[in-house]
């Protein structure tokens, strides 16, 4: 038993000792660092350690939660007592019950030793290489707003009065830059990024080149004419939409009538070209773990296949409401948050077309490479959206001039039904949660420009 598991067990005992009928504790300890570079110099270097415990206490069918950073005996006890007190304030809820223990299979390889092996100077050099690659790519590439490398290694332990017990360690790292290009009297920005479990999995030159290429390709961008036309969503944009869809497939949203997918289980919600899974055990997936945020084994769930809505995502509570079992879809933002239903790694299945073939199939349309305003431009209850976008015109099946300052609008389910092809190459993208997706061709979308 590690020290962290011991903390979790102690917290469970303290909560039941303070009057809770059942209790669960989630403890985590994380070490991380971040390097930000600008103008060939390290702008900031951060070394971070943090640890804490969150306790869920059940008093009959009432639930309360408390979290804290104090892992001393007294600190853990005080925290557990606050969780038990909080439960007394909540209303009775028939379906609120602690998860039962289940066997889970270990998932090796989640923690990459290169994080510990690479000293700070070496990861700083990685970030500097990202910036330098962009700056040296083209004279019109006038600057890099920021280039960042960050990593973290986290240990998680969970324990409960019903016998749930488990722990794992996982690492992750990323690097990105925001490149600035100038031309035709305007500035353009371009994002380049990479994700991996450790720094050896990142390609700094490719990241720098991507940011530069994205910024340079936007020089001279104009507002497009309003129209309805075929649209290709690149991986970053497709991922943002996949994230919205994943949110709508949460059983919590569905049960509470706050999802465009409510009442649509087993119904036709997409074209055959759009296939979506949630996979909490994918070896590459940033959100992969042997068990979810309440100790239920992670697994793979078919969400949309053959055009039909196959399943929603469940945690223990939402599963209890339907008398079924959890899909291992409880998630939290660390020990500070109560578990709630959320996708783990969303995987959009690749198709067979290269990007060139997708563009050729689009014929005349728009390639969208960036969207903005997703948190305010999408109604998660109805699925109606209108978001800011930028990208490239597609003319005669090939990329033409850049366009900006327009919106794409529609409705999520209608958009899925209009997906006519998926690209062959999928990529992990940190937008919309943790998503692996190829570019997608949507047969028709409304574009509002001039």
């Amino acid at each position, binding site marked *: 038993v590690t020290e962290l598991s011991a903390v979790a067990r102690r917290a469970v005992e303290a909560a039941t000792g303070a009057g809770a009928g059942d209790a669960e504790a989630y403890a985590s300890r994380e070490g991380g660092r971040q390097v930000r570079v600008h103008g060939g110099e390290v702008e900031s270097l951060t070394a971070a350690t943090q640890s804490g415990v969150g306790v869920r206490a059940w008093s009959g069918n009432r639930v309360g939660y408390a979290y804290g950073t104090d892992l001393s005996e007294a600190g853990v006890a005080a925290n557990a007592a606050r969780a038990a007190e909080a439960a007394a304030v909540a209303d009775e809820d028939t379906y609120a019950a602690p998860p039962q223990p289940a066997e889970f299979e270990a998932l090796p390889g989640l923690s990459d030793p290169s994080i510990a092996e690479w000293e700070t100077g070496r990861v700083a050099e990685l970030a500097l290489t990202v910036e330098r690659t962009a700056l040296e790519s083209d004279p019109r590439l006038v600057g890099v707003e920021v280039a960042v490398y960050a990593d973290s290694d986290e240990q998680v332990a969970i324990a409960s009065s019903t016998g749930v017990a488990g722990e794992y360690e996982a690492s992750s790292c990323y690097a990105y830059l925001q490149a600035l290009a100038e031309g035709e009297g305007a500035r353009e920005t371009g994002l380049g990024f990479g994700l991996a479990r450790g720094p050896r999995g990142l390609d700094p030159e490719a990241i720098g080149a991507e940011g530069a290429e994205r910024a340079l390709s936007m020089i001279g961008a104009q507002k497009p004419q309003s129209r309805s036309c075929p649209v290709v969503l690149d991986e970053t944009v497709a991922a943002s939409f996949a994230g919205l869809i994943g949110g709508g497939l949460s059983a919590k949203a569905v049960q509470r009538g706050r999802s465009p997918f409510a009442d649509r289980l087993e119904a036709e919600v997409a074209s055959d070209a759009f296939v979506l899974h949630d996979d909490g055990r994918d070896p590459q997936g940033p959100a992969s773990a042997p068990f979810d945020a309440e100790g239920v084994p992670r697994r793979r769930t078919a969400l949309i296949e053959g055009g039909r809505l196959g399943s929603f995502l469940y945690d223990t509570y939402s599963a209890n409401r339907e008398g079924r079992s959890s899909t291992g879809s409880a998630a939290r933002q660390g020990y*500070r948050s109560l578990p709630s239903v959320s996708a783990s790694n969303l995987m959009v299945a690749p198709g067979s077309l290269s990007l060139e073939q997708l563009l050729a199939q689009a014929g005349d349309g728009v390639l969208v490479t960036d969207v903005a305003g997703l948190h*305010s431009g999408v109604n998660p209850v109805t699925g109606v959206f209108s978001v800011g976008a930028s990208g490239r015109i597609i003319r005669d099946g090939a990329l033409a001039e850049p366009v900006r300052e*327009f919106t794409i609008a529609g409705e999520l389910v209608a958009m899925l039904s209009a997906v006519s092809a998926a690209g062959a190459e999928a990529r992990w993208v940190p937008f919309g949660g943790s998503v692996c997706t190829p570019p997608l061709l949507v047969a028709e979308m409304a574009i509002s420009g001039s």
Partner: protein
Amino acid sequence: VSGLVDPAVAERVLARALANGGRFAEVFAERRRGQSMTIDEQRIESVQSGAEEGAGVRVVEGGTTYFAHVDGLEPADLERAADEAAAALRSERREPRPLQARETTPLPIERRPEDVPAERKAELLRELDERARGKGREIAQFTGSYAEARREVTVANSDGLFTGDDRTRTRIGAQAVARREGTVETGAETLGAHRGFELLEDDPGGIAAQAAGKALTLLDAVPAPSGSMPVVVGGGFGGVLFHEMTGHGLEADHIQKGASVYTGKLGEPVAEPLLNAFDDGRLPGEWGSDAIDDEGQPTQKTQVIEDGRLTSYLYDHLTAERDDVASTGNGRRESFRHLPIPRMTNTYIAPGEATPEEMIAEVERGFYAVSFGGGQVDPATGDFVFGVSEGYLIEGGKVTRPCRGATLIGNCLEALAAIDAVGDDFFMKTGICGKGGQKVPVGTGQGHVRVRAMTVGGTER
């Protein structure tokens, strides 16, 4: 108010932070306490409380900031943070100046939320639920939230500053879903302040009724139009337009990296002479107010636009040092786990002379954006986008039908210069602003404002 760390300990920690050199070192210690709960499906749930404490230590040498943060406020915790921050430096030891305590007066809190029984807060959420459902049978869902947070902070730095603050914020939110046959619409409203439970003593249920009213109104909505047209923006949270369009571009870090469309525009006209705008971290009780910023600098009122001319950027300690000016008290951080960066506090367009009725009457065909769900800007290009949460068509000088699914999109410089009327009906609203992965509470405000032409992106075919 500087009770989190003993001055003698702070001095020792600063000396350790400068053990390998550095021209500036700082300790930021913080204790956070909070409670929150929600009502959903008419049940009180997600009752939770948090208790965190820790410190961040930074050392600045040349153009580099070395930062480390730890949990815990014991001397050993602080020393560990100082050692980690100093670990990568390779210069000569420096000595910090002796600390001089500077008193600050935190914003007054009349009724400490932590002294109010949790049952009273639950009761308040039940009141919100009743008020919303009382608006009509078409209200199908209601979610209400309550949150209180107290942050005690102590700041000590190698220039000899030793000060602190004690901040309590309280906020409630209401979200209603209205349903009529196949049509579903939502409405949301919030009330928040840098105040205690006294904020909620005067008709807190009003926001629930407003949220429900918005959702019900939208049941009759038509798809939003598309195209360029005059736009009248509502007061209060309408100020998020200025916050995104201009405020972010005035934060000195963007300016100094050439990543703002306002770089090099100080003293130049950027708007019609009728426009005056401020960032003011001292507004009594406001959501974005604090006695000091997160570097210990007293907050202040900064005029950023005077009669249409750009008059000031917003600075933290390091960006001010670089421009050889004084900090404007805008160095803010989400918590001890983050580095301070230039951030807005309460940002607003000062009241003008027009009335909302006049502004609308002069528009033949246009759009009336009463409130936004939020917005986003790329300060480097100036491109912005806003999601409209409540909007109407203006036809023949009159507000006519409600619209759903509207987005406003444009470029900062053009849109700011196109503001041709500012209303006299000023008020402030609360927001949560994200930048560089850090969220901080901000106030936004204005009276009604009219933009001559803006692109509305709707779903109308």
